[in-house]
């Protein structure tokens, strides 16, 4: 199905926002200004955007420790996220959560999560809520190739099948869990999707660095899930452009691997090539988006630096609603 010019520009913009958000963090983190653990989503943008472009705020997603891309794609404000990562009291979580715990419930973003594999059961719950409301809404659990080995993820898949929950399990296979290769950690002789299929789900596979592949696949998957057929799973083959965490020596990479994936597996480059090739958009269109986005990120960083800091009293707030 052909996307409108607006849809294309919007998709590109979303991916570009994630890319520049992360590239900028990568730089800022070196200065030591940003505290805590930060995991960059750079390289996987086509997955988050190709999925979330189909969703409304009533559709829920649950994310991972590598959550910035999912948050931005689901509609979290760049400003509020940047302030949160800077630990400002004006951040999306008042500086309480930080990079690994960004959430925006009103947007249907039920949280990044520091516990690998914790998100899948939560997504099943959100899907059961959607089923109860029977308005065709769904819930999505983003998981990595490492998270798919956690018992909670397996339990969630079986529970979703048993309860016919409209839950979509999206496996972003970026080939590594921290420093370990997927070929080692996932024992199955086939792939992650096949293992999910054996749980009794319909499964799909696609190239996670190709926005159009992701977007077209998700159109089918969502039609299926919204149609009351129960859960589904999708495996996207994608790439992580940075280390697991900042400062990761990345000794697990093959020679020239990073250059190769930056060169041939960059979802933004590929998107540009195909839309300009097909004369749907011009380089000028896209360059325009690029400079807008860069300006937006720059502004967000400046705002985050200047934003209010939390105070000691804030520690005690928001543990309970009533106690």
């Amino acid at each position, binding site marked *: 199905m052909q996307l409108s010019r607006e849809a294309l520009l919007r998709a590109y913009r979303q991916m570009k926002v994630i890319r520049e958000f992360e590239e900028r963090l990568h730089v800022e983190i070196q200065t030591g200004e940003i505290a805590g653990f930060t995991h960059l989503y750079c390289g996987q943008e086509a997955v988050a955007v190709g999925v979330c472009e189909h969703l409304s705020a009533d559709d*829920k997603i*649950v994310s991972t420790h590598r959550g910035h891309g999912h948050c931005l794609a689901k509609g979290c404000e760049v400003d509020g996220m940047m302030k949160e990562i800077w630990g400002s009291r004006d*951040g*999306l*979580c*008042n*500086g*309480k*959560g930080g990079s690994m*715990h960004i*959430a*925006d*419930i*009103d947007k249907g973003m*039920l*949280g990044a*999560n*520091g*516990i690998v594999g*914790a998100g*899948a*059961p*939560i*997504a*099943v*719950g*959100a*899907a*059961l*809520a*959607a*089923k*109860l409301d029977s308005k065709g809404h769904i*819930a999505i659990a983003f998981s990595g190739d490492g998270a798919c080995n956690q*018992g*909670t993820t397996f*339990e*969630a898949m*079986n*529970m979703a099948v*048993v*309860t016919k929950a409209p839950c979509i399990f999206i496996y972003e296979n970026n080939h590594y869990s921290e420093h370990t290769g997927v070929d080692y950690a996932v024992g199955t002789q086939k792939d992650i999707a096949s293992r999910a299929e054996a749980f009794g789900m319909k499964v799909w596979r696609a190239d996670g660095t190709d926005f159009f592949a992701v977007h077209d696949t998700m159109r089918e998957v969502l039609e299926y899930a919204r149609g009351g057929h129960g859960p589904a799973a999708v495996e996207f083959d994608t790439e992580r452009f940075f280390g697991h965490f900042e400062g990761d020596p990345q000794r697990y990479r093959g020679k020239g691997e990073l250059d190769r994936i930056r060169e041939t597996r960059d979802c933004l480059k590929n998107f540009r090539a195909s839309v300009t090739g097909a004369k749907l958009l011009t380089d000028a269109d896209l360059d325009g988006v690029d400079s807008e986005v860069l300006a937006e990120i720059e502004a967000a960083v400046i705002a985050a630096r200047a934003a209010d800091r939390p105070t000691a009293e804030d520690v005690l*707030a*928001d*543990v*309970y*609603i*009533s*106690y």
Partner: protein
Amino acid sequence: MAQMMYRDAVLTTIAEEMARDPNVVVLGEDVVGGMGTAGGPEAIGGIWSTSTGLFGQFGADRVIDTPISESAIIGAAAGLALSGKRPIAELMFADFIGVSLDQIWNQLAKFRYMFGGKTKCPAVIRMAYGAGYNAAAQHSQSVHQILTGMPGLKVIMPSTPADVKGLLRTAIRDDDPVIFLEHKALYGMSGEVPDDPEFTIPFGHARLSRAGQDVTIVSSGLLLGFCEAVADSLAAEGIGCDVIDLRSTSPLDEETILDSVEVTGRLVVVDEAPPRCGLAADICALVAAKAFASLKAPPQTVTPPHTPIPFARELESAYLPSVDKIEAAVRKLLAWR
């Protein structure tokens, strides 16, 4: 007032709240029973009979029978709560927090705080706890001491059918995650229960079940009855005991405890959890810190020993606090010079 069993107080309260609020959902293992069998649904209403008939009344979308997957059960409750529902999840045995703790401790309990206060998480996690059934080391444990130490959770421990009613209703209507601990040896306990469908008991308000001037005894659950028996027999000798039923350990009603100790100057905490980093120590430390001047004798604890829970009848009863041990602790306080 109706005469009702502890277990039925659980069931009727859930049924009443489900009828009142379409967002209330029940999930757990065998809460329906018979799913996927020739016998058909409702083969059992939870192994404690605390969900009998709910499936027939409210249907499969609101009474969800689950596979044996406790992490997924609690996780699903968390997701339901974040999505505007009011899940009531059942763990058959409190011991099963072992296979689901992350979802309770790192997820449910922390969402509101981690998300900057921008969400609520109205989930009730019910679980049957406690010894007395010779169910041995993995099916008899108390867990309130573990969960009370976890900020973000509320921990409720009713000791009577009436308290089940009032506290469970409060729990289901509460907007924070609530751990609701039901003592398995009390399910068959019968008592008066108010009929008022709006009867609730606020959290953090202990109940004074016996009044006296000489010693303060703090307890809850199965052991509360032991403490009352001791208080009654000592009353005959003219020794007066305040017996405080905590009802909730988080929030804790510090005021009732401290007020009592300021009068009696003597404290015994009787608790079913193991001694180290337990609730008994928690309350003794509270009193030592905040009522130091009024203490006439060292605060005493009566708890099981630092051992797993043994199987044999003789062993389990030697393991549990007994009326004799509680009375001995009281007399030790009175004899203190």
